[in-house]
């Protein structure tokens, strides 16, 4: 993603992601879990990078403004649905009691405990979110709001940002945060992350400076209205200068985990638990709690994050009360959760979406007519049901960014909704397709990949195409998909909460290999644009381009299923990813 966007930015003169009801039903999933463990990376990434912008943050970049309250102009809807008999208790409804340990079941071990700059793995970002904070944080509508900032200003030309830091913010090691820590952390961010590299590619020489102990300035050569959005993501966290100097761009060892967040790292025993304690000296904001932003109060003593590789077992653990929260629940257990006393099932929105990703560099799908034919040969809803099993956990929608975000667009809806096998057959005949088998990379490690492929394969064969499914483990798919000579198509799972400019397929080196000057120009505009209306127009044009060129064909949205016990009061994370401040145990 990042390289492609950076290239596009540089190239242009620029302006410019009953339990096994009870048994055999989940057996297949159980086996997969037993042998697998992690989500496909795009999906994992999506959970980690729920980025969204806020139109007001964008606006602030265009004019000289001083913000103390944050930026988002919410258009998003409430996004967490309790589907069981009782809904999660709203924070405002309850009185909190201090103490206790909340046990969270997660699916596996992170590649690094809490370094979201090193990896986009969703378990790492889940833990990073509890321990660290950035200059901005996502509010309940996923927009950026100041977190470690008292205020920030943007020059009239949109080229210079001045960040006024909050004073007296303590790190977990007792040090007080200052501008040097921020500069060191952002420098590491600029070296290690895709979005950081995008911003640093636009940086003026010596553009990032500590003006004084409480002030950081960031000077750009071109406007980047998206900066606050990027800095509100978990990867833009602030740690001490000492830690940055010590670890550089290497992955952060556990003994260097020092943040300013409401939880502090206590202990990590691989495959047993990651324990976080309440940070007693946490420097809370005074403004009202709002998603991941605003005032954070930790009532519980400890957060115990337990890797449970089998999601059926994790769900059972929530039912028995051993875990208070399961981050990932088997879709097939929705009905079981609905009838389990003391447990609430959560359908988490926004989630991700899946698409057919065509190889546009080599082979049959270099012909746009064939992409059009395949794109209109299969029923989206049936494919989603085949992929995920439970209709409630899916949604038909054409947008690259979910309806819960401010980047929602209906451009290309007619193409998305068009299913016509007769016309598809004609397009196949008109195309340069020579009758060779279309090689489809897929895996049974993540069933939605295989189930989608198996269903769409039939529809493709019905319009006269030969399809060969190349089934392997996920690691093999990841390696093969980088080689354009070995496949024609595959399924990709992407995030619905990302700003469209940061979608992975914008990078022409990403599997599928979409090259498009028009795309580069539109992505550049999205990065730069600060006016919400102009941004929306650009997004519409970008999405229309996707449905015209068809580098991918979106199938539809999917939501993850989570479960929480009713002993946890005040847990209502809305569109944000899970956290356990501002909630307590009964």
């Amino acid at each position, binding site marked *: *993603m990042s*390289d492609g966007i950076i290239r596009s930015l540089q190239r242009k003169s620029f302006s410019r*992601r009953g*339990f*096994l009801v*009870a*048994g*055999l039903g*989940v*057996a297949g999933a*159980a*086996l997969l879990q*037993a*042998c697998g*463990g*992690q989500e*496909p*990376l795009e999906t*994992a*990434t999506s959970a980690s990078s729920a980025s969204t912008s806020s139109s007001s943050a964008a606006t602030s970049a265009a004019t000289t403004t001083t913000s103390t309250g944050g930026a988002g102009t919410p258009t998003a809807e409430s996004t967490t649905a309790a589907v069981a008999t009782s809904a999660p208790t709203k924070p405002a409804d309850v009185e909190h009691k201090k103490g206790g340990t909340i046990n969270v079941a997660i699916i*596996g*071990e992170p*590649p*690094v405990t809490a370094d979201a700059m*090193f*990896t*986009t*793995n969703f378990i790492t970002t889940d833990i990073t979110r509890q321990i660290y904070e950035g200059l901005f944080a996502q509010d309940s509508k996923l927009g950026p709001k100041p977190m470690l900032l008292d205020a920030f200003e943007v020059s009239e030309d949109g080229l210079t940002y001045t960040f006024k830091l909050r004073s007296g913010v303590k790190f977990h090691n007792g040090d007080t945060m200052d501008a040097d820590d921020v500069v060191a952390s952002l420098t590491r961010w600029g070296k290690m*992350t*895709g979005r950081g*590299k995008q911003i640093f590619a636009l940086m003026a020489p010596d553009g990032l400076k500590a003006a004084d102990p409480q002030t950081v300035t960031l000077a750009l050569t071109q406007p980047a209205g998206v900066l606050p959005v990027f800095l509100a993501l978990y990867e833009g966290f602030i740690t001490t200068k000492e830690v940055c100097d010590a670890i550089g*761009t*290497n*992955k952060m060892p556990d003994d260097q985990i020092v943040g300013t967040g409401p939880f502090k790292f206590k202990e990590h*025993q*691989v*495959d*047993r638990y990651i324990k976080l304690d309440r940070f007693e000296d946490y420097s809370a904001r005074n403004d009202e709690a709002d998603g991941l932003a605003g005032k954070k109060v930790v009532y519980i003593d400890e957060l115990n994050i*337990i*890797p*449970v*590789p*089998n999601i*059926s*077992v994790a769900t*059972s*653990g929530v*039912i*028995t009360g*051993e875990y208070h929260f399961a981050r990932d629940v088997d879709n097939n257990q929705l009905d079981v959760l609905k009838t389990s006393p003391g447990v609430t099932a959560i359908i988490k929105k926004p989630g991700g979406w899946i698409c057919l990703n065509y190889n546009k560099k080599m082979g049959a799908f270099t012909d746009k007519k064939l992409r059009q034919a395949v794109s209109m040969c299969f029923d989206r809803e049936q494919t989603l049901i085949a992929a995920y099993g439970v209709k409630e956990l899916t949604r038909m929608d054409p947008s690259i960014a979910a309806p819960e975000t401010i980047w929602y667009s209906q451009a290309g809806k007619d193409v998305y909704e068009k299913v016509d096998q007769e016309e598809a057959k004609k397009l196949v005949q008109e195309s340069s397709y020579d009758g060779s088998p279309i090689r489809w990379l897929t895996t049974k490690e993540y069933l939605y990949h295989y189930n989608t492929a198996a269903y769409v394969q039939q529809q493709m064969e019905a319009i006269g195409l030969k399809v060969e499914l190349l089934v*392997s483990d996920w*690691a*093999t798919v*990841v*390696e*093969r998909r*980088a080689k354009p000579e070995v496949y024609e198509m595959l399924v990709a799972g992407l995030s619905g909460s990302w700003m469209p400019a940061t979608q*992975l397929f914008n*990078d022409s*080196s990403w599997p599928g290999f979409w090259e498009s000057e028009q795309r580069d120009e539109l992505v550049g505009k999205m990065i730069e644009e600060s006016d919400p209306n102009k941004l929306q127009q650009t997004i519409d044009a970008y999405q229309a381009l996707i449905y015209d060129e068809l580098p991918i064909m979106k199938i539809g949205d999917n939501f993850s299923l989570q479960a929480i016990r009713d002993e946890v009061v005040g847990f209502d994370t809305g569109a944000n990813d899970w956290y356990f401040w501002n909630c307590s145990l009964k």
Partner: protein
Amino acid sequence: MLAYAIRRLLVLIPIMWIVATAVFLLLHSAPGDPAAFMLGSDASAEQQAELRHNLGLDRPLYQQYFDWLGKAVRGDLGESIFLGKPVTSALAERAEPTILLGSLALIVSLIIGLVTGVLSAVRRASWLDLSLMSGAMAGVAVPTFVTGLLLIYIFAVKLRWLPVAGYEPISAGLWPCLRYLILPAITLGAFEAAFLSRMTRSMMLEVIGQDYVRTARAKGLVERDVIVRHTLRNAFVPLLTIIGLMVAALMSGAVVTEQIFAIPGMGRLLIQAVVRRDFPLVQGAVLVIAMLYVLTNLLVDLLTRVVDPRIEL
């Protein structure tokens, strides 16, 4: 016997070398990149290449092989890419849960397997034989993950007698540790017991028709002595080989069982290492497991000789 043991131990060296080389070549020729797994798909090709370089994975394969082999000879199995710690420490940390689980499962399988196998043989063609062998057949046929999930459903979710999953080390106390191991031990032990039961029955039936058994009965020995002292003891020699292999399998980690019950043992470590393409960890774990098999086989051979002194080694 000592000379035999030394000879077998010396044979261990070429076996280990062959295993090490085969595993190294297989792992490195299989698709999959640990850097991609570590960094996530959002990482650029440049970032992945940098990490591969830092991990030394961009060096020529022969160089990586000889470096690893040279260290392995000196007892250094390298560092786990994912865990960032020496492979030997990672394996040592996982030994306790695996040994405890394996031992409990072995006890379960020996008790169930031997008792049901002997009973079936003694009551051949009876309803008891039919029932026990049907049960054994089902035990062999039903995968451990199904057994495990069913046990969790009954004993953890419905009856609430035991925890669904997890592990407490023995240092936390005997009962806190055992309560997490009971269901996995039954899951694992039941599968092995079913196999052992069928083998015990077959071996017993082979021996039970022998002349010396008839002679023992003709001498007026009580049936229990005939079965235990004359029949089972003679049937035990081939069974010992099977039990030896079971011990090696159980001690090297029960992959599926450890995954289902979230037990941080060697089996879970190994499967995760394979999925993550953590080359040094897979290589080290396979070496240790191979060594375990060879040593267990040696021990079984020696025990066979103890049980039946007529056998020449």
